[in-house]
């Protein structure tokens, strides 16, 4: 075969591939803009985790309950934009400015992701907050065999063995590490942080004895506590948790939490920049109806979350306060990393 025909064939095959790529971009550019309508149609909900991840399941649960409570009649497809712990999802929403048929299930993590990035492509302040729905109380767990009966014991242990004790959790920039760093700074102690991308290995690190402590949610620990493998030693709040009435709060144990936001892990719904007040009102109505259903209460109980329905300027203030109190912690992190 002649080399020219050969080259031609490769070129043709490649051209097909490129045509495919361009066709996709035309399609993407051609998505319709349905701003201005009273009731948004073809609503899509954006999340920052892959299928089966926390926010994905949260979004699907909301859609399911909103349908059950007759707030919405059609299904909202879930779009997952997983890049950069919320940065990708926020950038995606920023690109949908003024449209009323896109909402995002945000978490407090999105604030931290934007703080920890030099030039974030978008931040939660760019979006239109619609409603906060839930807050997840942070609690502290240790293995049952641990000598630490409360958080004061743990801090004393960390004083006796500087940089020896290990806390396990997710990325360094996650809330559990940030609040631990605050305690370390306040008490003049230092312990290590062991990152695992998934929840499973964190629990096994505790059970194996590689890590001595973990800060997380009730749903992270409940089963292991029931099975007698883990013990809850503190609640990161000034109120005790109904599920663990005998566990004292950090405040009761003499730690000052006033510099930390009252809500550490919250979830809510936001729209793109410039979403019309009418559309915001529509979504608030749907969500308000949904959170009154028994199904929602059941879901909150099983997750160990508390319902926090905050909208409007109160929600903006909440996000602003969280941002201000977390900023120095996130910055101390990037300083330490250098």
């Amino acid at each position, binding site marked *: *075969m002649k080399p020219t*025909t*050969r080259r031609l*064939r*490769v070129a*043709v*095959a*490649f051209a*097909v*591939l*490129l045509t*495919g*790529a361009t066709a*996709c971009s035309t399609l993407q550019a051609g998505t319709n803009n349905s701003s201005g309508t009273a009731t948004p149609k073809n609503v899509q909900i954006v999340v920052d985790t*892959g*299928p*089966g991840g926390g926010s*994905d*399941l949260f979004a*699907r649960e909301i859609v*399911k309950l909103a349908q059950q409570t007759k707030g919405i009649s059609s299904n909202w497809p879930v*779009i*997952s*934009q*997983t*890049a*950069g*712990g919320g940065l*990708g999802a926020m*950038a995606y929403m920023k690109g949908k400015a003024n449209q009323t048929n896109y909402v995002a299930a945000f978490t407090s993590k999105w604030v931290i992701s934007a703080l*920890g990035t030099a*030039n974030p492509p978008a931040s939660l302040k760019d979006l239109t907050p619609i409603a906060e729905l839930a807050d997840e109380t942070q609690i502290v767990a240790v293995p049952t065999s641990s000598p630490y009966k409360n958080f004061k014991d743990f801090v004393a242990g960390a004083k006796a063995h500087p*940089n020896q004790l*290990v806390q396990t959790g997710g*990325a*360094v*920039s996650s809330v559990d590490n940030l609040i631990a760093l605050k305690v370390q700074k306040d008490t003049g102690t230092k312990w*290590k942080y*062991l*990152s*695992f*991308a*998934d*929840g*499973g*290995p964190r629990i*096994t690190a505790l*059970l*194996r004895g*590689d890590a001595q402590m973990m800060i997380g949610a009730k749903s992270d620990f*409940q*089963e*292991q506590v*029931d*099975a007698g*493998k883990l013990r809850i030693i503190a609640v990161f709040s000034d109120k005790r948790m109904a599920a663990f009435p005998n566990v004292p709060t950090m405040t009761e144990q003499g730690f000052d939490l006033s510099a930390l936001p009252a809500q550490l892990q919250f979830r809510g719904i936001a729209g793109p920049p410039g979403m019309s007040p009418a559309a915001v009102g529509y979504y608030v109505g749907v969500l308000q109806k949904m959170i009154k259903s028994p199904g929602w209460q*059941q879901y909150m109980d*099983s997750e160990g979350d508390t319902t926090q329905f905050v909208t409007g300027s109160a929600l903006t203030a909440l996000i602003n306060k969280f941002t201000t109190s977390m900023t120095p912690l996130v910055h101390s992190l*990037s300083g330490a*990393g250098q």
Partner: protein
Amino acid sequence: MSALNHLLDGLGTALSPTNLLWMLIGCVLGTVVGILPGLGSPAATLAVLLPLTLRLQPTTGLIMMAGIYHGAKFAGSTTAILLNIPTETSSVVLCYDGHELAKKGRAGPAMGMSAISGFIASTVGVIALTFTAPAIANLAVKFGPPEFASLMTFGLLLVISMAGKSPVKGFISMALGLLVATVGVDLVSGAQRYTFGSINLYDGVQFITLTLGLFAVAEVLINVEQKRAKPLFAVPKKLRELLPSRQDLRRCAGAIGLGSVVGFIIGALPGGGSTIGSFVSYTLVKNTSRNSDEFGKGAIEGVAGPEAANNSEAGGAMIPLLSLGLPGNASTSVMLAALLLYGVQPGPLLFTNHPEIAWPVIASLYLGTLVLLVLNLPLIPMWVQILRIPYWILYPTILVLAVVGAYSARGSLFDVWMLVGFSLLGYIFRKLEIPAAPMLMAFVLGPQFEVALRQSLTLSNNSPLIFVERPISATVLAITVAVVAFSTVSRHRRRRRGAPAVPTTPSVAAANSSAVDEPVK
């Protein structure tokens, strides 16, 4: 033995007509999803189907999910063997020998062996799960970052040993894979690496983009270059040639056994998963086989070993899920989510509190592979017909599927452009005879190795002694050294003996005969 009674009860429940019907639907659905790279991973399918399965009885819903899980897995092997497209990380290894077999006209036996070894392995897996769950669960808990880092060292060292003729080229491919794998936001420090400030690279490169480019599109590019008058593959006419022969089965017995055990144990480690299982199994089978020279050129053990591991892994993966409440991989984590939505808390108490759910799920996992075997053996002749499709239909179809697959992984056009880039790279690789599989394996294993290494050093305050101080880690390292030494010595000895390599033009006869000493020319 009460575990056995429970299992038999579970089988009884799973065998009800309704459950069987949903399992069948699940298997078919999973097969369809797995065969089309565009439709996404089984984890995504499971998540999308969650609302539907929630309307079923918990047991029935979970049984259907188990069907999808198995169906998608098996389909991943099918595309790897027939078209050299691994749609799942665990089927990358099958491109080595499975596709070579298909090129020789032995696609049928390769697929049959994949189904048979899968069935045998999941039998082993479910029996092991029934009787050893508590013991293995304890072992799984003891497997921490240092142990994982040692296991990954084993895996990465053997990537090169699989490279084929030129270890240098294998090393180049592996190094590129490690490099591409570092792209993204680093978990441990939160720093960005090679993202060039682009949000599209924060999450790194998608596996499916890399694999479609390096394998599927590159294959098309290389093939259209040569005008083909005759069909791509030799398609056997006789029915008997479509199924593995008795000799194939005898040859693979050891590989299936080894693969089953390896897959089960690695599947039980939290974060283990079938990719590492199938890979470790391939290298172990290759290094212990008498026919190790044939590997990479169409050895049927190279299909049986990893496929066995790939399937017994499901049994192993259920151990952390059911006994500790911890998912081992993406698919089991979706099943975990489903259990939660049904209001069943999986965890150490699941077997005590909800035996009516736990045991039928285990039983249905097992029945799933039986359904697949029954469903697929008669269908093999049909699948093999894919190879008869003329290239002017097949190639555009593959290109379209590749573009759709890359796009739909996360709805990003950027990924389609990356696909174009990786296709070019794959084409260059083929021209320079650099194997692409080491790059893909390094891409999968590299990040896990890196994270485990850094976690270990965090624990030990930067002392590398942690890897030999912990008994399991030390054992794994010792096995690594032994396998590497063994394969080096045996290669050296073979070279000294001047034994001929496997014929350069592969033939069906060479693949069938177990004798390596076939004269060249």
